[in-house]
């Protein structure tokens, strides 16, 4: 059995959706997360069993709103979407065929559906006629640390002539040409995952991966209405970050090799799926892989409350965030920084400058407060 499978225990690896894959780039320096993700471990269940459930949830209103908007854009064979594409690409697309790749009949496995997508994309890549074709719900795949992850197919691929584009439908509003920057950034990161997966697919099929454009089409509601509007978003930077992170994940092997051979994050679920692994044991196992906590984890990683608690117990300055840590010249613990500030600790080599600053800050603070 694969080492990563042993780490996970006898459950299937958790599929990564595009959101999860995009989030991999959020804290690239964290070994704990790299190992757990590479092994396809359910971090949410792990955090819950550890007594630190993740603070994430999505409101049913937001979900409904998303679905309503998406079906509006896709109504009557994506008529509305086609109109937007004509506008934004400035092309006279007379007509476009619509293919729903999700529609394979029955309840086929992801694997089957992916083969179906493959076949149709291959055919599409061969015929470069001028009529456009929309491929809804393409089931794409991305390899992460040796495991295939199928991506939730909530995008549309559009082919016109020899070029493919990813179309992403999001329900956050663009008001007077502006949207919330972090939402746009998150959408761009996710779209990059699909661009990469589609490029890989073309490459595997022997086509030029460069035929997938790095400009993705983002479709959002405009102003306060439900009327959609489209924007081109260049995701080259997101692609570069993603590739770097995926390359790191393939090197996760060396990280895993360094771990004790008996280490596992298996929750030992019983017949009803209830975890029976002793919590203390699981805690030790998780702590066995180094984390790099940062306050950003609070919005990106299921283990955030656990790791924050750990950082707090260790008195780590990471707890206070990057800005503080930078201002402290990278001094790792609160005790050390305070020791340098009150002079009870002699600075190590290389720490003289920050120690001088901290002592000065301490003196001035005492003088004026």
């Amino acid at each position: 059995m694969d080492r990563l499978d042993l780490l996970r225990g006898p459950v299937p690896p958790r599929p990564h959706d595009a959101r999860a894959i995009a989030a991999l780039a959020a804290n690239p320096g964290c070994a704990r997360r790299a190992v757990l993700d590479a092994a396809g471990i359910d971090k949410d269940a792990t955090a819950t069993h550890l007594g630190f459930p993740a603070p994430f949830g999505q409101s049913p209103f937001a979900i409904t709103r998303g679905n309503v908007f998406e079906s509006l854009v896709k109504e009557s064979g994506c008529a509305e979407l086609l109109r937007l594409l004509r506008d934004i690409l400035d092309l006279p697309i007379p007509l476009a065929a619509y293919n729903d790749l999700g529609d394979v009949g029955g309840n086929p496995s992801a694997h089957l559906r992916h083969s179906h997508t493959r076949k149709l994309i291959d055919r599409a890549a061969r015929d470069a006629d001028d009529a456009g074709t929309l491929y809804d719900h393409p089931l794409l795949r991305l390899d992460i640390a040796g495991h295939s992850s199928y991506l939730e197919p909530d995008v549309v691929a559009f082919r016109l002539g020899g070029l493919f584009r990813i179309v992403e439908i999001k329900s956050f509003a663009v008001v007077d040409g502006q949207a919330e920057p972090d939402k746009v950034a998150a959408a761009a990161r996710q779209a990059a995952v699909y661009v990469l997966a589609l490029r890989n697919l073309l490459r595997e099929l022997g086509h030029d991966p460069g035929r997938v454009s790095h400009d993705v089409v983002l479709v959002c509601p405009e102003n306060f209405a439900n009327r959609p509007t489209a924007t081109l978003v260049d995701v080259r930077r997101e692609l570069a970050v993603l590739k770097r992170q995926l390359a790191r994940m393939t090197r996760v092997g060396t990280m895993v090799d360094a771990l004790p051979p008996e280490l596992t994050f298996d929750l030992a679920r019983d017949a009803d799926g209830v975890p029976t692994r002793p919590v203390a044991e699981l805690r030790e196992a998780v702590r066995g892989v180094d984390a790099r906590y940062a306050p950003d984890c609070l919005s990106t990683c299921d283990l955030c409350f656990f790791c924050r608690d750990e950082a707090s117990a260790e008195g780590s300055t990471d707890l206070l965030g990057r800005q503080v840590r930078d201002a402290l010249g990278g001094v790792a613990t609160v005790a050390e920084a305070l020791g340098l500030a009150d002079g009870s600790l002699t600075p190590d080599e290389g720490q003289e400058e920050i120690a001088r600053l901290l002592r000065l800050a301490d003196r001035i603070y005492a003088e004026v407060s």
Partner: protein
Amino acid sequence: MSTLAALARLRALQTGTAKRLATVRHCHLSERPMVFIPLRLAGEAAAPLAAMAGTDPARPRLLVVPQPRDRDLRFAFTAELAEILLPYVEGLQKATETVERRGAEPYERCLDAPQLIVPNRGAVAFVHMLGRSTRFRRAEGPYAVHPSVPVLGRWLTFLAQRAQYPGSAVLLAATEALSLHWATGQSMLEDANLASLLGWIDPPAGMTGASAAREAEDPLVWPPAGPATDPGFDTEVLVPAIRAYEQRPTERAAARVGEAVRTQLEPTWGLMWRAIDLLGGLPAGPGTAARWEADRASFTNFTAQLAEGGPPQPKRDGAVGAASRLARMERAQASYDAQRAYDDPLVMAGHRLTGEAFTGTVVATDPDHTEGEGRGRKLRPLLTIRTTDPARLAPGARLGTPERRGQQAEVVEIAGGLVTLKIIKGMGRGKAATPGAVPEVGERVCYAALSDEFQPPASLPAPEDTPWTHGGPPPEHVPADEDPEEEWS
């Protein structure tokens, strides 16, 4: 972040309670602020779900949209909000003072201005959005709304735009106002949670700040301060309540939604007034009055614009508007930073650490020192200060001093912990310096290379001369006919 602020956070973490970052209050606090806590329906840009508003801590007004997707109910909400906000704003327009100006007509300025206090940055953004979604509405024609709605929209827009001006206090986010004065033992990201921030600053008896802050993260104990609601609350409470209203839109069903959102708003209402009390407990910094005066002038101007029947604020700034605003903002920010430093030794401490300012003891003076000959002879008193601060100032640098505002000095020489300065402005016009203008030997003094004087406005082309590279002249806003009909679904 300055080393000083970082150290304050470390001390907060070590002791379990927040540490002061300021000795005085740097934002004006109105005698009658209006607290406004908006909630938005998840997934929507500006669909109000509910709000709590009012000027009396004992009498919050609850506003509810029992079905937030219903356009008429939403405009009923904004009309109700207008009923609360407009009388508040209009009441402040009545009392004015006459301001005399050299070389210009005297003008009338309101003695006070509105101050809206909201929980956090998200709420400030929501005020902006709500203003945008209401100011173009019309009282007649298709989709007519109550006449107060577009007026409300223009006031909300005024407040949100003015709030971007550094040092303005017409629209304050409680988390930001508190963070300006206290350092907690958590990250800035976590400080955006009002309950947790207040936990550090003012923990309940028997609790450390750290544990109060942790407890504050539980949405069941402390519901989020908005505008987003807790997804768990949405799923378990709000969805069924709204569905019941949809099926039978009775008063009882509406009241059920109202009671549901009240549980989410009431805890924050209490927190908001605690935040105001805490800020009010600090003595006002001397500069707050002048900055509030600028807010009052801005309020007076906008009142006049509205009275003259000007059009609603445009959807976008033209390029020149944007550039001149940016330049003005930068100057205002520099001046605001300087004012706070001169008002507050704790803020000045941060500048002393970076070497832009220093404190020391006067060891020698030459109050009658002059420069130049004959008619060009000028009084330039000299003084030498001993300091242990790491002053990093070049000869010729212009300095100000909190002890003698309006005075200016220039660095002559810095060597071995001794700084020699000459006073170049603010020592009187006579042959000898005005008594008290030159510090005595032995006096503790502070000097800083911070200027709170406004530079002359950057010369920018008038809006109609915008170069084509910047999009050409901005189109004058002609209220388009579709504006009031813009969908809001």
